[in-house]
């Protein structure tokens, strides 16, 4: 069950091209890691899939449907959940209000149930339900963002550097949750990460981007064995 397929994607912003020919495939119950040095186009890839960047050529197929002409909010309704690196929650609102907003596309009668399920999946969020998001710690915020995705019952979740600026212990908790997204909820996950080691550990497949071009695409354990690539591009010993 291929949820997402990206073919030869050339993308960027306005007139500027950043990504040159990316290919990847995500199935259900699968985590695909996108790694690479800074500025290699990882975020652009996610943004293009979400509909927030310019696509110059190539195809983005979601459940077999070509998404090029589909607007971002309609892509979200199709089952795509995108968590950007920054501003992925409404800081000035409470956690509950954020979740209500996240439930915008959920049918009224189903919402309470989904909310319960999401809070069950993320007990940390239940604990801070009535606090304003700007008072939360970085880790708690990420949990809220993940809850906002889960509540929509997406088929694919895309996370852009979720562990950035988080303490290692907290980051580990986030990574555990991401694994649960695959194992407990059966979702497809695209994970962009600077922490390449951890990302390769938990993912099934990996895409290595360097300066906008794909240098490796295949099973993660294979990339972990490629000392040459790891050291040169990712600085991972």
């Amino acid at each position, binding site marked *: 069950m291929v949820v997402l397929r990206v073919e030869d994607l050339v993308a960027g912003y306005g007139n500027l091209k950043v990504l040159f020919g990316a290919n990847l495939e995500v199935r259900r119950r699968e985590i695909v890691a996108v790694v690479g040095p800074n500025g290699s186009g990882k975020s652009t890839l996610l943004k293009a899939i979400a509909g927030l960047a310019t696509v110059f050529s190539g195809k983005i197929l979601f459940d077999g449907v070509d998404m090029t002409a589909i607007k971002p909010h309609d892509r979200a309704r199709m089952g795509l959940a995108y968590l950007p690196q920054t*501003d992925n929650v*409404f800081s*000035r609102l409470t956690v509950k209000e954020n979740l*209500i*907003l996240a439930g*915008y*596309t959920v049918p009224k009668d189903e919402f309470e149930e989904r909310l319960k399920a999401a809070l069950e999946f993320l007990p940390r969020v239940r604990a801070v339900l009535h606090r304003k998001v700007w008072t939360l710690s970085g880790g708690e915020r990420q949990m809220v963002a993940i809850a906002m995705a889960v509540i*929509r019952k997406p088929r694919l979740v895309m996370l852009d550097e979720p562990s950035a600026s988080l303490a290692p212990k907290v980051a580990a908790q986030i990574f555990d949750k991401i694994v649960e997204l695959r194992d407990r909820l059966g979702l497809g996950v695209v994970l962009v990460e600077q922490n390449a080691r951890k990302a390769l550990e938990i993912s099934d497949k990996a895409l290595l981007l360097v300066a906008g071009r794909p240098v490796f695409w295949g099973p993660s354990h294979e990339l972990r064995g490629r000392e040459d690539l790891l050291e040169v591009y990712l600085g991972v010993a």
Partner: protein
Amino acid sequence: MVPVEVIIDAITFSNLLALLALGLTLTYLTLKVPNFAHGDLVAAGVYVAFSLHKLCGLHPYLAIPAAFLICGIISLISYLLVYRPLWRRGASIVTLMIASIAVEIVLRSGLHIYADALSSHLKTFTRGFSFAWLDRSVEVCGRTLAFVAIASTCTLIAVTVSMYLFLSKTRFGTAMRAAIENPSLASSLGINVDLVYAVSWFLAGALAGVAGVFLPFRMPSDPEVGWEMLLRTFTASILGGLESLMGAILGGLITGFAEVLGIYVLSKPPVSLSTAYRPAISYALFIIVLLVAPGGITSLDWRRLLRGRRK
């Protein structure tokens, strides 16, 4: 004691400004550009009411729905044809401002042409007219009030309450608040941000149109009245804090009262300022706000101020 007429003027004028500032802030929240064409939407409302009165004998108050609709549509069209395409091409704030000035020129000239054409068709004056003679008087607490003060106040209250309910209680209203706060996040949650923006622009124009119906009751009107109201609207919006809707309403009320009461006081001895300086009060207020509290009154930390800065 300030004469009743002046109070009526102050109430009506500040209600007008509140409606205008609300619209201006609303469109600013979407594209982050101050819409220089906003004033002319008021003028358009004036002429909708005037035309319906002259052509169909409709009393101006009854023209409110028409003004609401027509001016809303004009504003929406300007969004769809000009601002949205430019926005999508990544235009800068300056470019959008220049575009809004271009729209302003087109609207104002269009109104001039309309006024002239109407004049030759009706064989009557279409500039410098007033609705004051059409107004009713109402007895309140032993004083005679012009009905327009009451009508405009009721309208403002109705608008404020419905906006509040709409934004906080309805699904679409909540989506609007989310889209304004964080458009890309909102759209990744399935909210149609473009629709939100389009509705905002429609509403802004519609509110300006309604204000335009009330305007000729207290001020002689012609196509240039839009530009005259524009700069005062800037003052009102900035006073309220350019990012706050409730602030806009407050800013409009304060600016309106400041201007009308201010010129009344200043036109008496010992200052004896000419009443022609009336708009200058709003301009001066504009400069003062920028110097003292550029974020407007809603940005001030009132608790800290009231405690005195010793914290």
